[in-house]
């Protein structure tokens, strides 16, 4: 998890909103990639959960992008997606072909915690009060997202305890 080439001490509200939008976009795209991976490997339950998460990230992205548009219209951005590395997105090695919905949700919960840590960890470096306020809001938002995922987890029946590696064939790559 990292962001390259940004001095948080000099971050303006516009930069901060651009960064937040890109973080949500990166997470959304990764969840969609995971959903596609699950589809390719015939795991519809995990696929459906990852699509649900992608939808949530998109909602949040759209809300932040709307706010950015209202405040700064089309002012050029100094932040690009190439600067971001897995801030809220699940890391590629989190996915498994035969992952259960519970494992998929636990992975998403880990991401919400990771994002919370990211925003909380930056607060000391932020000088602009409006940026600090935004980051506090985003940090608290991640707590809300964690609660959503935990609620979904509680609805699930427990996993069988069987490890798919013990009985399933290896995934077919080609």
């Amino acid at each position, binding site marked *: 998890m990292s962001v390259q080439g940004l001095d948080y001490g000099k971050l303006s509200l516009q930069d901060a909103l651009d960064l937040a939008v890109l973080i949500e976009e990166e997470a959304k795209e990764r969840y969609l990639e995971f959903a596609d991976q699950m589809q390719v490997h015939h795991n519809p339950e995990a696929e459906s959960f990852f699509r649900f998460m992608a939808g949530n990230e998109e909602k949040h992205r759209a809300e932040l992008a709307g706010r950015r548009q209202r405040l700064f219209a089309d002012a050029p951005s100094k932040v690009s997606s*190439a600067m971001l590395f897995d801030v809220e997105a699940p890391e*590629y*090695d989190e996915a498994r*072909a035969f992952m259960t919905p519970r494992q998929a949700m636990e992975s998403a919960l880990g991401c919400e915690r990771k994002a919370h840590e990211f925003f909380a960890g930056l607060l000391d470096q932020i000088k602009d009060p409006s940026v600090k306020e935004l980051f506090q809001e985003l940090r608290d938002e991640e707590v809300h997202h964690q609660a959503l995922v935990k609620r979904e987890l509680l609805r699930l029946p427990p996993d069988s305890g069987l490890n798919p590696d013990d009985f399933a064939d290896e995934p077919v790559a080609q």
Partner: protein
Amino acid sequence: MNCQPKDFKSDLKPIWCPGCGDFGVVQAIYRALAAVGRLPHDIAFVSGIGCSSRIPGYTTAYGFNSVHGRALPIAQGLKIANPDLLVLVAGGDGDGFSIGGGHVAHAIRRNIDLTYIVMDNQIYGLTKGQLSPTSKQGLQTVTSSLGSLEQPVNPLLYVLSYGAPFVAQGTPADMAGLAAVIEEAIRFPGFSFVNVQSPCVTFGEDDWQLKQHKAVMKSLQSLGHDPADVIAAMRLAQGYGHELHTGVFYRAPQPPPTYDALVRARQQEQAGKALPRERVLELFAAKKKETAA
């Protein structure tokens, strides 16, 4: 026009096993290409055969998923025919250091301006887990049930020994570092080699996955390594298989001329010496008369 990483992503859905290291590698390649600033139609991707060799299909650049072990000769031909193309070569450790091993030395000695990215997972994953040239000694696989008896090939030492002017290593466990070394390799004027430790989630060793990479990787920069020092690079490269060093092992301080530059120089040198067309035809006519008489 500035490209973003997603501009290099094709609509084709990767069919690698979920959790495969190659997902991170292709992401790092998108980022490196966006940073380099060339457009997809200025780039060609050539690969051999294997899981990692599917990469050309997952980019919007021109691509050729070619023949096992033959990515380098095809890429060399492509670059010679169209020197303005940015040519990237991708493949696995089996493709590059077993069946294609003989081609690596020649690509290096010609110093054709290519970037060769090897996704080294120490196993033949696509064919379900046989020993590969970089499998460690003692590894038990479907073709070595009692453990491999052979020493692994060390790709870093291999290319350094043949005089590769740019040699680096990365892992998708450090995406920022991997994207940076791939970008640097692409920008290097000449043959550049990046060994990517890209674990096989299905047939690879459980204790050599990305989580373990994160725990043990050490950047060469943090060790104070001078990438201009080829002897130090060779010493550090001997840690392959035991340590995970990331970053640039060797960057020739004065890059040698590329094959393309040498060809152009030869063309210029010969241009003034060539006979005019009319004189060549006269010589032919004279020879013909002489043969007829």
